[in-house]
C-alpha cells in the first residue's frame, strides 16, 4: 500500500468512514505481506521456489491467526444487555475471552467464571426412565432443571452463599436489615479466592453463548475477547503490527520449507530458529519495556504499605 499524505490520514479525503486511516501506519496489510514475500523470499535464487501463491497466503494467514491468539494485544470489546434468558451470544469473530464485566452503577465489575456447570441439555423421560423421540428419531429435548433453577434464581452459588441466618436457623432473632443477619454461618467451603457478590458465568463454547446466573438479568455486560484477525474473510482488512512483520515472513518461510520435500534439515532448523528469535524480539518490543517504565516500577518499590 502506498504511503498517504496527512490529509488522507486525518480525514480520509472526506470519504466515510473518515477515521479509517487513523493508526494505520502501525500495521502492514496482508496483500503487502504476500507481495513482499513473493518478491524477497521466493524465486529462482531463493530458498523457496515454485510454490503456489495460495500456499504463501495460507501460511501468512495461519501466522497472523497464531499471533492474534496470544502475542498481539489486540483485544476487542463488546457491550450488550443480558435479558431474562441470561445469555450473551458470543460475537461472530470470537475465539477466546479475556475478561467479562458487569457495568452497574457507573462501575465496571469484573465477573468470575463459575467452575460449576450452569447449563445442561435434558430429555423428556417417562416414569420408567425411557425417552420420548421426535419424528427424526432424536430424543425430545426439554429445559433442564439446572437451567430453570439458574434462571429463576433458586440455584445456590458456591461463590457467595446467600442463605440468611433465618433460613439456616428459624429460631434465631431477626435483626431485620442488620448486615450481620445475612450469610451468617453458611460460608463454609466458600472459595475465598473467587468469592464476590457479582454474578457468575460459564461459557458454553459449542452453543456459542455465555450463561449467567439470575442476578445478571437486565444488566449491561461488557465482553473483552480476542479474535483471529481474519476480519470476517475480508483479505483487504487483514493486517499485522509492523513489529511482527519480519516474524511473519520468517514464519511463512519456515512453514513452507518444513512441508517441502527434500529440504535439508539444517535449512529447516535455521528457518525455525530465525522464526523463534524474531517472535521473541517482537514480543519484547510490543511489551513496551523502556527505562522510564522500569524507573516507575523501581520507585514503587520503596512505597510504604499502610
Amino acid at each position, binding site marked *: 500500500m502506498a504511503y498517504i499524505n496527512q490529509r488522507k490520514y486525518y480525514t480520509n479525503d472526506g470519504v466515510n468512514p473518515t477515521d479509517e486511516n487513523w493508526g494505520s501506519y502501525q500495521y502492514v496489510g496482508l496483500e503487502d505481506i504476500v507481495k513482499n514475500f513473493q518478491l524477497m523470499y521466493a524465486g529462482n*535464487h531463493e530458498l523457496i521456489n515454485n510454490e503456489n501463491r495460495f500456499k504463501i497466503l495460507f501460511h501468512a494467514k495461519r501466522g497472523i491467526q497464531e499471533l492474534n491468539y496470544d502475542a498481539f494485544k489486540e483485544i476487542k470489546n463488546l457491550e450488550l444487555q443480558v435479558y431474562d434468558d441470561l445469555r450473551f451470544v458470543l460475537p461472530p469473530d470470537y475465539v477466546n475471552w479475556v475478561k467479562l464485566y458487569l457495568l452497574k452503577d457507573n462501575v465496571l465489575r469484573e465477573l468470575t467464571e463459575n467452575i460449576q456447570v450452569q447449563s445442561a441439555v435434558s430429555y423428556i423421560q417417562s416414569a420408567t426412565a425411557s425417552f420420548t423421540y421426535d419424528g427424526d428419531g432424536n430424543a425430545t429435548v426439554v429445559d433442564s432443571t439446572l437451567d430453570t433453577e439458574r434462571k429463576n434464581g433458586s440455584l445456590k452459588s458456591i461463590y457467595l452463599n446467600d442463605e440468611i441466618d433465618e433460613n439456616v436457623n428459624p429460631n434465631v432473632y431477626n435483626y431485620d436489615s442488620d448486615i450481620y443477619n445475612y450469610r451468617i454461618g453458611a460460608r463454609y467451603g466458600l472459595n475465598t479466592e473467587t468469592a464476590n457478590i457479582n454474578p457468575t458465568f460459564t461459557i458454553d463454547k459449542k452453543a456459542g453463548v455465555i450463561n449467567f446466573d439470575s442476578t445478571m438479568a437486565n444488566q449491561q455486560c461488557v465482553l473483552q475477547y480476542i479474535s483471529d484477525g481474519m476480519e470476517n*474473510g475480508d483479505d*483487504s482488512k487483514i493486517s499485522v503490527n509492523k513489529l511482527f512483520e519480519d516474524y511473519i515472513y520468517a514464519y511463512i518461510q519456515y512453514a513452507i520449507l518444513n512441508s517441502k520435500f527434500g529440504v535439508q534439515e539444517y535449512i529447516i532448523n535455521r528457518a525455525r530458529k530465525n522464526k523463534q528469535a524474531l517472535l521473541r524480539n517482537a514480543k519484547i518490543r510490543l511489551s513496551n519495556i523502556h527505562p522510564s517504565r522500569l524507573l516507575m516500577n523501581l520507585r514503587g518499590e520503596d512505597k510504604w504499605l499502610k
Partner: protein
Amino acid sequence: MINSVRNTVLAIINKNNYGYISPGDFNLFAKQAQLDIFDEYFIRYNQQINEENARISGTGYADIKKGYEEVIDTFSVTSFLTQKNQNVYFLPSTSTTGSDYYLLNKVLCFSGGVLKGEAEKVTNSKITMLNSSLLTSPSTIFPAYTQEADGVVIYPDTFNGVNDVQAQYIRYPLDPKWTYVTLYGGEPLFDQTQADYQDFELPIDDSNNLVAKILQYAGISIREADVFQFGQIEDQQQNQTNL
C-alpha cells in the same frame, strides 16, 4: 537478416552443385528453424538459472540470462482478453488479441478500470478445493484462474466485465517470409517492399543457428546427407558454445 541467411544457405548448398531451394521451401524451413531456436531460448534460460544457482555464472557482461530475457521479452505482449461469457475469457489468439501465445506469463484482474490483483494459475484438480477453502479461496486481491479449452476461467466470478482481465504473454514469432520479384530471366530477386515480407524476429546473433537449422532441413529435402550432417554439427557446436 532473412536475405543474408538465405544467401548463406544457398551458397553452402550450391558449393558442390547439391541443388537449389525454392523461395517457398526456404520460407517453410526458415519458419521451422526459427521456432526451434525460439523454443530453445526457454530451455537455455532455465539452464542459465541453474548455473547461477550453482555459482558458475557471472554478472555484468557475463550475465547470459539477461541476454535471454531481452530476447524473450521482445515477444512480450500485454493485452486485454476478449470476454467469452461471464467470468470466462478467451486465451490470446490471432483472432482475439492478434497473436497466438506461447506462454501465458501474467493475468491481471481489474474492476472498474482499477487493477485489483494478479490472478494465480491454479490447476483444475485444485480449484474446487481452493474455492471451498476458508483461508485461501480466491478473493478480489488474490484472484485465481484455470485454463479450459480456449479460455481462462477467473475466480472470484465478480471479475466479469469486458475489460476486467488483462494478460501479459509471450507470443510466437511471426512466420518469416523471403519475398521476391521474378525477373524476366527467371531468377527471383529479393524484394522487401512486398506487403507480406517478414524478416526473422530473432536477433542477428542467431543467424548462424538459423543457417545451421535450415541446412539440416534442406539437406533432408534434397537428400544430401553431407548438408544435413554439416548443419547438425554446426548446430551442436553453436549450442555448446552457448552453454
